[in-house]
Structures are given as structure tokens and as C-alpha cells.
């Protein structure tokens, strides 16, 4: 289907396709799992012959340690595996196929160069416990990435270890705790989080053994300064902030906020989910933040993989650096021997913070196995080297331009129907790289919930925006177009929104209420799924 065309319904609402007689070919094809395919004896893997002398099985492994029954894995041939997974892959929508304006997720184009580079055997088949002297290329890459992230954050020290944004947040709060504990201020247990924050923020606070204190949002979408002052007492450990925040608003009072928090003796944590708005434009370190986490998979364009993997490095200020997780990659200058310059002049190494007062010297410890998601580092580093300083800034500028253009298209004064009246901007006039609309008026006047709009967008070939977040906006719709979309795509999306509203105004809300029609399955019964969970196949 061409993006932007009004999709033809496969049947009238209420007269939906049933099973085998109608519907799209995919809809007629009942989903079968890999466990329901194949036949006894089929296989793909050919195991090497046992090439060592036979030994009594009991001597190899006593029977009491042995498995009573082999796992009932599928019995399928290679062609069956390929056809099965290629077949079900086609039941996915993906970024390479269409517009994916999922707010706060930064679904920008994933260059294939990164996949090719990461697959080089020197990266892909490098064992994490290879001696550092024999992994110099990998360590140099990590060291250079640490440096680039430090410069982008405006903070001096970096740990690449956290596995995802949520893991970076946990690292950040454990660092905050360690910092306060080092100053004998263990009573600092409150973490201030705005009511617009991502759910990971409060969840992380609890996992770090701290307490959530919610902060109100002011009329402009920023932090309510009076509420902040009222809570900024001697028990506060940290303020966690996303800036621009989840409303797409850059907090105009950020300097005052930083001053209040620092005067209260607390740390300031930057959730980097929205860094794509400000790369090369404004730096969290310069705003006064002590700890920043990056989402390499967002700002530095990793493929999102259907939900992982990601990578969540952190950058920190000098006062936090001694507590960083270890190991950290360092460059050591080689000493001259008898006046002769060594070759190479420097070597890269893993530092466990055992010496001195430097980064990691009073480490909180390890957050995971090995050194972090190196495969993601290769991709992020390739991206940074491809774009360079100017390119990163250009990416952020274009992301902000695209978001404002799409917002403007959705607010055209003489539009028919009047989109801006049904879907007003929740806060402000302009936006950063994303914006939040409220579907409240649409729900009241057209009987169309944000969910209905989202589901109807599926029939137009678009991934819907993030819906029902942030929580304080009624029927929220959070749109992040990113810098890699063309004006034509943004226009087509704006027109799709307008035509769905027009359809509802003209034909009534039922069309959207029963959408989607053209997807491999239609609306699914999530309540039944949760009430009586079936989370694995029953096997014969």
C-alpha cells in the first residue's frame, strides 16, 4: 500500500473478515509456531563425530547428574527454519519499511555500514577475555568512544558498561548513593522525579534503595520551581531530569534548577533519552548535570532489534568519577627505554581503579559481565565518525526542524477538519525534537480515543506515535519524527491524521474504533491474555 493513500477496508466495520473466507492473505494464514512444524527425525545441524576414545558414560558424567528426558526442541530442516522465520518476519512492521514516529524512542535510519563493520571477525569473534595487548583495536575504539561521549556530554569521565538506558539510570543512582555515602550523608534518600518522567526513573529509584518524590510540572511544561524549592531539602539525594523533557520542552529554568539542586547538596542526573535534540547545541555538563546516561541505540542509531539490544553508557563529573563502575578503558603512555621512543608510543588497557584517586578508585563495582555491549560501541563509533562534529549538530538541528514542521502542519489554521482543535499541542508553541498532542478534544467531540487514531494509522502504513504517555497529558500522543525523514513523509503523515479525523467527522467514529483492517491480525484481546496467561506452547 502506498503511504498516505486512504486504505480500502477489507469489509465494513462489524462485518469483519472471519478466518478463511476473506481478509488479506496473511490474515487467512493461521499463525503456527516452529514447535508445530517439522517431523520426527528432521534436523539441520550435523554434529561432528566423537573423535576421542570412548569412555564409560558413567565415568564421564554419573547418571544422577544426567537429564531424564531431552528438551523437546523442534525437529525441522534448514529450509523449514528459513521459511518459518522469513514468513513470520513479514508479520512485523519495521523502520526500513515506513515512518516510525515513536516519541522518545528516536527511530532514525540505521546505516548498514554499521552492521558490516560490527560483523568483521576482528570485532565479532573477539573474546572478551582476550589479553588487552591482543585486543588493542577494540580497546582503542572504546577509548575513542569514551572521549567522544565525554565531549558530547560536557563531562570528563565515561563508563561504557551499562547495557541499556535503564541500566545506565541504575548505575547513576548507585553512583549518587556512593557519593553521598562517602560524605557520610546516608540520610539522603529522596530522589526528585518530575511527573513527566519515564517509568524507568521511579522504578530505578526503588531498585537503588531510594525513595521517589514527585515534582509538579508548571504551566509551560517545565519543572514547577516552587515545588522544587519546597522539596529541595537536606534529605534529597538527586534530581532526575530529562531535558528536553518528555513533553518536548527544553526547561527554560534549567540554570536555576541546577543551582537549587546543587545548593541543596544533591546530584543532578540527566536522562539522555532525548539527547537527539541537543547534540552539539547544548551539553548536559554545561547545564550543571553530574551524571548523564546515553542511549546509544537512540541518539547514535543502533537498530532497535525488535526491543533490544541497547547500550547505556554514562558520563560523570569529577566528583562522581571515583565511584565509576570498572573496568574503564585507559591509554597508557609507554616509557622511553634508553632514550629511545617506544613503539607504539601508547597502549590501551583495562583499568580496574586499583591505584590512586582517579576514576573507579572507589568503584561501586561491576554492573554486568565483561565490558559492556561492544557490538553497540562499534556501531555508535561508526556513526560518530561518519557524521563528525558538524554532522551531529546537523542531525539535532534537522530533528528539531522536522518536529516543528510536522507540528506546524498539524496546526494549520484553515485546515479541514481543524486538526489543531481536536489534537491541541499540550504545552508551548514550538517544540524540540518531539511534541505531545492531547487527544482529549478529539475524544469528546469525535468519540475517537487516541488508541483508535493510533490503530487507524496502521491501515495507512504508519507506525503510530507513542500513546498515553506522558501520563499528565489527557489522551497523549507523543510524536518524534527524527532527522532522517523527508518532508514528503512528514506531509503524508499529517495528511493521514487529517483524513482519519475527517473520516470520523463525516462517517462517524466506528471506522477507526474497529481499526485496523489490513494488518496480519486485528485488535487483540489483551485482557484475556493477562487473565489466563499462555506464555509458552504446550508440547506433546
Amino acid at each position, binding site marked *: 500500500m502506498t503511504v498516505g493513500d486512504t486504505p480500502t477496508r477489507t469489509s465494513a466495520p462489524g462485518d469483519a473478515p472471519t478466518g478463511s473466507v476473506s481478509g488479506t492473505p496473511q490474515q487467512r494464514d493461521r499463525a503456527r509456531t516452529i514447535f508445530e512444524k517439522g517431523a520426527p527425525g528432521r534436523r539441520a545441524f550435523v554434529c561432528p563425530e566423537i573423535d576421542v576414545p570412548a569412555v564409560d558414560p558413567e565415568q564421564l558424567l554419573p547418571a544422577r547428574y544426567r537429564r531424564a528426558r531431552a528438551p523437546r526442541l523442534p525437529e525441522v530442516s534448514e529450509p523449514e527454519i528459513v521459511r518459518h522465520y522469513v514468513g513470520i518476519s513479514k508479520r512485523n512492521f519495521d523502520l526500513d519499511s515506513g515512518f516510525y514516529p515513536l516519541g522518545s524512542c528516536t527511530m532514525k535510519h540505521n546505516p548498514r555500514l554499521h552492521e558490516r563493520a560490527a560483523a568483521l571477525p576482528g570485532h565479532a569473534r573477539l573474546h572478551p577475555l582476550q589479553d588487552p595487548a591482543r585486543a588493542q583495536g577494540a580497546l582503542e575504539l572504546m577509548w575513542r568512544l569514551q572521549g567522544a561521549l565525554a565531549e558530547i556530554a560536557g563531562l570528563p569521565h565515561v563508563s561504557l558498561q551499562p547495557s541499556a538506558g535503564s541500566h545506565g539510570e541504575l548505575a547513576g543512582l548507585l553512583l549518587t548513593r556512593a557519593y553521598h555515602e562517602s560524605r557520610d550523608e546516608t540520610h539522603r534518600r529522596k530522589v526528585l522525579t518530575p511527573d513527566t518522567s519515564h*517509568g524507568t526513573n521511579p522504578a530505578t529509584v526503588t531498585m537503588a534503595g531510594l525513595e521517589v518524590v514527585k515534582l509538579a510540572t508548571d504551566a509551560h511544561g517545565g519543572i514547577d520551581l516552587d515545588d522544587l524549592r519546597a522539596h529541595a531539602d537536606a534529605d534529597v539525594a538527586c534530581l532526575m531530569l530529562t531535558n528536553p523533557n518528555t513533553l518536548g520542552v527544553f526547561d527554560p529554568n534549567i540554570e536555576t534548577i541546577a543551582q537549587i539542586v546543587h545548593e541543596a547538596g544533591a546530584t543532578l542526573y540527566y536522562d539522555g533519552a532525548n539527547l537527539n535534540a541537543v547534540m552539539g547545541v547544548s551539553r548536559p555538563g554545561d547545564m550543571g548535570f553530574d551524571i548523564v546516561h546515553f542511549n546509544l541505540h537512540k541518539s547514535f542509531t543502533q537498530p532497535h532489534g525488535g526491543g533490544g539490544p541497547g547500550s547505556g553508557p554514562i558520563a560523570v563529573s569529577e566528583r562522581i568519577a571515583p565511584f565509576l563502575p570498572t573496568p574503564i578503558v585507559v591509554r597508557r603512555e609507554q616509557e622511553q627505554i634508553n632514550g629511545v621512543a617506544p613503539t607504539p608510543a601508547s597502549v590501551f588497557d583495562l583499568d580496574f581503579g586499583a591505584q590512586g584517586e582517579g576514576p573507579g578508585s572507589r568503584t561501586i563495582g561491576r554492573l554486568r559481565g565483561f565490558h559492556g555491549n561492544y557490538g553497540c560501541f562499534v556501531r555508535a563509533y561508526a556513526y560518530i565518525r561518519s557524521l563528525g562534529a558538524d554532522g551531529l549538530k546537523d542531525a539535532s538541528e534537522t530533528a528539531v526542524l522536522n518536529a516543528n514542521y510536522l507540528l506546524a502542519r498539524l496546526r494549520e489554521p484553515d485546515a479541514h477538519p481543524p486538526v489543531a482543535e481536536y489534537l491541541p499541542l499540550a504545552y508551548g508553541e514550538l517544540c524540540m525534537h518531539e511534541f505531545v498532542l492531547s487527544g482529549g478534544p478529539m475524544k469528546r467531540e469525535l468519540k475517537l480515543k487516541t488508541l483508535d487514531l493510533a490503530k487507524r494509522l496502521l491501515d495507512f502504513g504508519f507506525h503510530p506515535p507513542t500513546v498515553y504517555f506522558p501520563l499528565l497529558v489527557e489522551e497523549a500522543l507523543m510524536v518524534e519524527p527524527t532527522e532522517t525523514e523527508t518532508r514528503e513523509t512528514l506531509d503524508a503523515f499529517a495528511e493521514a491524521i487529517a483524513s482519519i479525523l475527517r473520516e470520523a467527522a463525516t462517517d462517524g467514529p466506528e471506522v477507526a474504533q474497529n481499526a485496523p483492517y489490513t494488518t496480519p491480525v486485528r485488535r487483540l484481546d489483551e485482557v484475556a491474555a493477562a487473565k489466563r496467561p499462555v506464555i509458552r506452547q504446550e508440547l506433546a
Partner: protein
Amino acid sequence: MLATIGVGSVQELFDRQIPAGVRLGRALDLPDGMGEQDVYAHLRELASRNVSAEDELSFLGAGMYDHYVPALIDMLMERSEFLTPYTPYQPEISQGGLQVMFEYQTAICELTGLPVANASVYEGPSAVAAAGYLAKLHNGRGRLVVSAGMHPHSIQTLRTLAHGYGMSVVEVPLIDGVTDLDAWTEAIDGDTSAAIFAQPNFYGAVEDAAALSAAAKSAAGEQGRAPVVVAQVDPIALGVLAAPGECGVDVAVGEGQPLGNRLDFGGPSFGFFAAREEYLRRMPGRIAGETVDVDGRRGFVLTLQTREQHIRREKATSNICTSQALNALAGVVYLAWLGRRGLVELGELLLARTHYAREALTALEGVEALHSQPVIRELAVRLDADVAAVKARCAQAGVNPGVDIHALTGREPDRGGLLVALTERRSRADIDRLATVLGAAVAAARREAVPA
């Protein structure tokens, strides 16, 4: 576009929204951008300065293993439809990814012999820490008893995160390579939230999992105070080893890398997480479930989301947002590729080769077994020589003999310890070559160490 917005320049968009005091006002101090061919050349040059498992005969393991990854996994992971979407927030257009999660959960339940599994977590050691948090949510107690046979990274990660969620970690020592059952029983009391061991353990030894579980459950004394028994298991070994579910284990976690994932210098991979039914609603992470659509068609959704951070916020069972979907895809495809018989055959092959390697290496002068327990895919020996010096000599012959155990654990009794890992890619001829090279290297290192 600017006219539509009603501003004169892109700069104006920033000037009107970002206070002057926090604008950077200079270019980032980073190199200029490069064309694709130049970036590729640079990354290839960096790769060339790494010695990968492609470049040497490698016996490195200790949590990540150089198994063969079938070509069809590369092909499937590179497909746009799996590579480029995000978490399946819109199930109608995410059935492919959701069905993969459902199949993956089924495969993990089969491997572990446990009835419920999530759609994966970050990786192995943090999965252990996540199991500790599950135990705290389950029984509210404050102690975690762990076997010293756990991977050092697992123990270190658990300590870091347990400090956060307010639990203490008590280590139980080993005897002859396996958990000291008496010390284990003694360490577990009524305040013990979870008792955690590894199977096989870090030293390659097969633990008596059933005995450890049973002892943990009776050690707590009074009824109802039994701890959550957690095992970190190697998924490849589960072709021949008794399943955790058969051994009284409540929660089984582990590193998924051996299942069709690259080494990638340590990540990304995935962690698997399976449990008994009663822990389902305390599980971390995403879970896919089966349901039907409005027309009665079979379909899949994310389910039991009321555990999760985006709904429960500070009361969530974990802060984790997504699974490791792409890596878990590789995991389930790998298991389908191995198949019902292949996993068992692979386990038997590794068992035979690891036994053979232990015999071959301990026959060498200056090399002895670190313990006498059964080994299944990895073995530990003690060298009567400096391990780093021996490794350097082996490297000159193109052999990486394994992991320096003391360098990882820091435990004094582990000095001289070498951990040698086998996969189906290391043949008998390779093992014989290892024995020759290691024997010569140990002999040379011992000669060198003798004072002149």
C-alpha cells in the same frame, strides 16, 4: 519548511527555546565526518589489531564461548523486519517479533524444565542480580547466600546491585571444586532470601544441583522459610545435564551467548530467566502471551504488563524496559537449528572432548587438575608456572590456552589456574596441539623461573 513553521531560521528554533547560558557556542571538539568507505577502512584497521578466535587456536571461555553460529542466523538477524523495529507496542503490526518471543520462552522453559520464562534480560551476571531482586520481592528477606563457584562477574554484579536494593551477600566456599555442602547448609538461615549456585560452576565442575537445592530447602529450619533456590546454568550443557526444574531449582538464569550469539568482545547477548509458576508475577522484563484477535485469529501480545515500569513506576518488579529481542531471536533459531537430537549430541561431544582434554593436559609435566569433579565443557588445571608467561609463549605458537583464573577471581588458591574451554569447533587434533604447545610453554617457563 521554515515558512510553514513561521520562523526565519533553524537557529531561531533553538534561540527561542534554549537559554543563552547553556548553549555551546562552539563546534564539538570531534574529528570531521568521513565518507562510508573511509569509516569502513578505519573500523577494519581497528579490527585488524584484535586477535580474534578466527586468528588463533582459542580455548577461551569463562562465560562466553566460540561456538559456530550458523549462516542462517546472520541472514535472519540482518532482515529489516527483525533488525529495525522497536518493542512491539502495536501488536497488530508486530506479530513476527511477538511470536519469536513466545517461541523463545517455550524453548527456554523446555531447556530449564521450568514452566515460565520471560522474553530475556540484558545478559548473564545481571540476570543473577535480577533473580536476587525477585527473591527480595517474594519474601522480603535480607540475605543472599551464593556459592563461590559462581562466575566472579556474577558475584561482583550481584554485590553491586544488592547494595542498591539493600541485601547482604554471603559467599560459601568450595571443596574440591564444588560448593561445600556443609558450609552451604550452615550459611542458609531463616533470613536467607535466596540461595544461588552455578551449574556447571566457574571452575568447570558439575555441581550436585539436586543436593544443593534440597539442602537449601531444609536448612532454613521452620516451615515456609525456605529460600528461593537460584541456579545460573549454561544452556549448552542442558542437553545432557539434569534440568534445573528436575533438581528442585526455583529460578534458573544464565548467559545466552552460547546459543547462536557472537562473542562481540562481551556483548550484546542475552540473559535468560525462567522460574516456577508462583514467581510469574514477580518476573522482570517483557513476557509475550498468546491470545486471539476480534475475528478469532491466533495472535500474540505483551502480557502481564502490570509488573512493568511504564505502568507501575516505583512499584515495578524491575526497571528493565525491553528484552534483548534480536539476541533472543538468534537463541531460539539456534535451538531450532540444533534440534531435539542435536542439542544432546552436542552435549555428548563436549563431554567426551572435555574429558579427553583433561586427560591430555594433566598428563603433562607441571600441569595438574584443579579438582576431580566431572567436567562438561570446560576444565580447570593448575600450572606449576606463571600463567601469564605461559600464555605469552603459547601465543607465539598461535594458541590461546585459556583464561587465567586468578586474574579473574583474585583468590590466592587460584594462582596458576587455567580455565580451558571446548566447543564443537575444537577437534581432537586441536586438543592435541594445545597439549603439545602448553607442555612446551610450561616447561620453558619453569626453566626460566629457576634462579640462575
